[in-house]
């Protein structure tokens, strides 16, 4: 029989979701359709079970506060297939499950596309009889609490629900139930935390004020860039703002007489594209979105005064979006000039439909580029103790490797945006691009390590467990033998983690295969070296190495372990950070056991406690 493309299972499954959250109603393209991957079309196919339970995600609608389950959605029900999933509804739990599944799946797909490989979760192993082994549990109505977070121990994303403030509910009804799982931003944000945790072994370990802030900022960046892929919402905002999508407020449709609005069309409203989790913030009585990422002028002193993870993370978000909006304006300047030259209106509300469409196309394209740069940069980050400056270097290097010529000036825009906010990478001599790129060992240490040979791959298939074990041993030996060149401590054991192949298309169009690995070292040190009864924590150091397919070290991105001495600057900084953070905890006064959990320990992978961070107290 002749081949027909119609024989293949459809690649995508349309599912409806809110573009923002229920509080936006039908405004601004809030009812959207997400085309998620149809898991049944994969190799090997996964049957999507009621829940939905698929390859990566298991949505289990168990409510621990009420000890009850809610009826699960069966997305393969023909009645749902015909209408592209359930329509948005706050009162139907099955729609909630569908939306969490859709948005989380979409976030996963974006990561896989950007990284060029299958993702995995940060928890490994698990009991053989665990029916959800290897899947991230998603509990859309886990508990009654104004909180949502990723919890590695529970292997789950948990979303809470809560009654809106009685006295200050914002646009909600007083006491109305607010569902965090219906906020597009919150779902994307939490999924991003889980995804990052899967990429790296110790990346989530808090080691300084920048690490928790980085994770909050990064997850917000992912959630925000997702806004710019919603065509309907984007088009409406572009139209209403005359193309200036970065403005924080959308003016009224009709100018009010004497400055005071009388009817709804005369009201101005905030721009949902640059806000995060509006309903959530308002329901708590904060009278604003959870975080306003943009809208404050760059301040090079902010880094020295803001230490709360979200506030500090917002600096990172603002820097990345500054660059993004700059590029968007640059990419659309010609279109605006053509429009103006031909006498076409470019004022808010009067854009030509075709122009608005083209602007939306540019905004969406640039947003995807930037999201990809950020996600790809994860492979180029040091294995632990990330700072904002490291992230800038990682982005610049990752993007250079992919697009050596920078025609649109993406990298230049990023560098300038970071510079304006006082983010200075350590160990570089200037903000010049070549100075910011990571260096190979011969430049850093003047030593060229030998080729790392003997690594085994199964390209294009994933490596087998035997190959992985072999590669781990090979890499550890290589690290130990070349400790000096790679910035490792020659007296301490080296362990290899998170190694995988990365594929990229070289500028000449050929496929390049590279290998990335983390070489880790650790030592136990006293929290307070002057106190003989001090708590002890495990201090880690390590290097991310990127190897060519021949085994040549292209980059060795280092956080040196060093010695347990008072001259070890990184150790001192980490000690100060732990001492200060512990002292600022409310529970610190009463010395509860939970305090001890704050410190990293040998053999225990420490993660940030997102439950505490997101709760805000």
């Amino acid at each position, binding site marked *: 029989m002749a081949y027909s493309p119609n024989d293949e299972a459809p690649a995508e499954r349309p599912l409806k979701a809110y573009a923002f959250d229920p509080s936006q109603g039908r405004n601004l393209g809030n009812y959207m359709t997400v085309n998620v991957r149809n898991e049944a079309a994969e190799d090997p196919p996964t049957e999507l*079970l*009621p*829940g939905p*339970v698929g390859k990566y995600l298991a949505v*289990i609608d*168990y*409510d*621990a*506060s*009420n*000890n*009850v*389950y*809610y*009826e*699960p959605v*069966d997305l393969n029900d023909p009645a749902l297939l015909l209408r592209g999933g359930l329509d948005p509804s706050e*009162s*139907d*739990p099955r729609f909630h499950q569908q939306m969490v599944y859709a948005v989380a799946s979409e976030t996963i797909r974006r990561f896989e596309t950007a990284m060029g490989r299958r993702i995995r979760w940060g928890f490994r192993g698990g009991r053989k009889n665990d*029916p959800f082994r290897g899947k991230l549990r998603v*509990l859309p*109505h*886990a*508990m*009654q*609490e*104004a*909180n949502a977070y990723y*919890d590695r*121990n*529970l292997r789950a994303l948990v979303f809470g629900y*809560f*009654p809106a*403030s009685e*006295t200050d509910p914002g646009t909600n009804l007083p006491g109305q*139930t607010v*569902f965090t799982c219906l906020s597009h931003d919150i779902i994307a944000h939490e999924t991003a935390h889980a995804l990052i945790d899967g990429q790296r072994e110790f990346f989530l370990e808090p080691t300084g004020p920048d690490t928790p802030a980085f994770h909050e900022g990064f997850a917000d960046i992912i959630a925000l860039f997702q806004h710019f892929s919603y065509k309907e919402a984007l088009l409406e905002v572009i139209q209403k703002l005359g193309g200036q999508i970065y403005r924080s407020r959308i003016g009224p449709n009709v100018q009010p007489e004497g400055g005071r609005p009388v009817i709804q069309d005369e009201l101005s409203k905030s721009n949902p594209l640059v806000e995060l989790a509006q309903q959530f913030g308002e329901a*708590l009585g904060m009278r604003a979105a959870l975080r306003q990422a943009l809208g404050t002028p760059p301040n090079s002193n902010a880094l020295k*005064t803001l230490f709360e993870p979200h506030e500090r993370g917002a600096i990172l978000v603002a820097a990345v979006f500054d660059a993004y909006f700059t590029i968007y304006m640059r990419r659309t300047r010609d279109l605006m000039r053509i429009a103006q030259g031909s006498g076409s209106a470019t004022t808010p509300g009067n854009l030509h439909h075709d122009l608005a469409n083209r602007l939306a196309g540019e905004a969406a394209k640039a947003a995807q580029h930037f999201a990809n740069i950020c996600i790809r940069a994860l492979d180029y980050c040091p294995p632990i103790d990330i700072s904002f400056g490291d992230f800038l270097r990682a982005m610049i290097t990752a993007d250079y490797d992919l697009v050596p010529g920078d025609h649109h000036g993406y990298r230049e825009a990023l560098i300038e945006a970071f510079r304006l906010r006082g983010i200075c990478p350590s160990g570089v001599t200037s903000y010049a691009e070549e100075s910011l790129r990571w260096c190979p060992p011969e430049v850093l240490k003047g030593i060229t390590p030998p080729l790392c040979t003997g690594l085994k791959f199964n390209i294009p298939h994933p490596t087998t467990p035997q190959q992985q074990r072999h590669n781990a041993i090979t890499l550890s030996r290589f690290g130990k033998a070349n400790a000096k060149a790679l910035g490792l401590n020659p007296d301490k054991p080296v362990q290899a983690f998170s190694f995988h192949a990365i594929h990229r298309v070289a500028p000449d169009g050929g496929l390049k295969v590279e290998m990335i690995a983390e070489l880790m070292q650790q030592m136990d040190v006293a929290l*307070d070296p002057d106190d003989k*009864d001090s708590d002890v924590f495990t201090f880690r150091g390590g290097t991310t190495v990127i190897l060519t397919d021949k085994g040549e070290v292209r980059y060795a991105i280092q956080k040196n372990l060093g010695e347990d001495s008072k001259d070890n600057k990184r150790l001192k900084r980490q000690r100060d950070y732990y*001492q200060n953070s*512990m*002292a*600022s*905890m*409310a*529970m*610190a*006064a*009463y*010395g*509860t*056991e*939970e305090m001890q959990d704050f410190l990293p320990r040998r053999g225990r992978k420490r993660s940030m406690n997102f*439950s505490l961070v997101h*709760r*805000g*107290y």
Partner: protein
Amino acid sequence: MATKKKNKKPAKPIAFGKNTIRVRMYRVGFGDCFLLSLPVADADANADTHRHVLIDCGVHFKGDLKMMDRAVDHIAETTKRKLAIVIATHSHQDHISGFSNKFSSFEIGEVWMPWCEDVRDKQALKLQKKHIALTERLRQHFEAEARRAPVNKTRAAAMAAVANLVQNKTALTLLRAGFNVNAQVRYLNASDFLKNAGGITGLSANILGPPRDEKFLAKMNPPAGQSYLRMDGSQSNRLDAVQPFPARWRLKPSDPAFSDKRLSHLRLSDEETAKLQKELGSPSLNSLAFALDQAKNNTSLVTLFSFRGQQLLFPGDAQWGNWKFWLDKDDAEGILSGVTFFKIAHHGSHNATPRDALEKMSKGKFAAMVSTQNVPWDSIPRMPLMDRLGEMTMNRVVRSDSLKLAGTSGAPKGPELPEMPKGFAQGEFWYDYLVKLK
């Protein structure tokens, strides 16, 4: 704390006289009760030689040594029932429980409280109501849970923190009414500066906290929306519980649908549901209790008194957030390096004396007092802090629990004082710190 120095004569005690400041710390248990006495210059033979400021008067019911009545009687006797200023740094039981009707027989000039206790201040009132409601819920919830399951250490600490927030109504009402003796009630906030404070010539008060800053307020405003347990008779019920969906969507874990092939894959094991209930339920309420406690501590009125060259810092129970607010300011260094007496905040707990602040004080140039004991929280006082205080003050520091109380059995015993530090003296159930003015 103090290391023993041999072959050294004990310092000669300073006599309490015309030109002497005295800070008296009563040992009441886990609580604060400080009497500051300032000399009146050129006092007539018949007039009082000193004027008095009472800073806090309370004890936590779980660390109560039943000394409060005696302390108040003793204050009455010492001051001839005349107090120029009464300060309630913040409305925690261990700082105000002793403010009883007894004070209505005093002549009181002024009552000072932080602005957060003002009932005419809209913002303050909103916060107070929220705190009171939340405290009551937490108390009921912990009580209900304690009847169902044994209480672990963290929960016990959280329960004691909540207990500290309740039953303060009587004292607060009295304080706000100026003890019904026409005392002037002042609600103060950071950056207030009072000259000749309380009518005491030469005494100025620089108020360092609490601020009226928006960000600071947000920290005092824990989110609502949670549900709590309450005992109704022998049954515990959930208060404010939200049922997010109508019954038609609910499936009990025992529902036969789960044995059905269609849904069997979704049923979590009993072990896992138990774990989820544990992890997602109570820990957040422990944190909430601690957060509420810290929020209240951070409303502490932080007062820096200056009197004829002496700088006496009374920070109440200010914790990290309150300190942080003014430590970031430019003049903090100057203030700290000039301090000559320091009442240690929050009974010497971990987060009440920022290391940075202590290190900025001038080594050997100040004395300190800690009203503390390791009941009801064994993490208080924090030992490394006590050690460092010993070094920084050159052993001019005393802990209230070093004092042996006659007739009280079972009072927690602090470390013995090897020798009375210079300027200090011991009374029946108090320690004095005396400064002879030039």
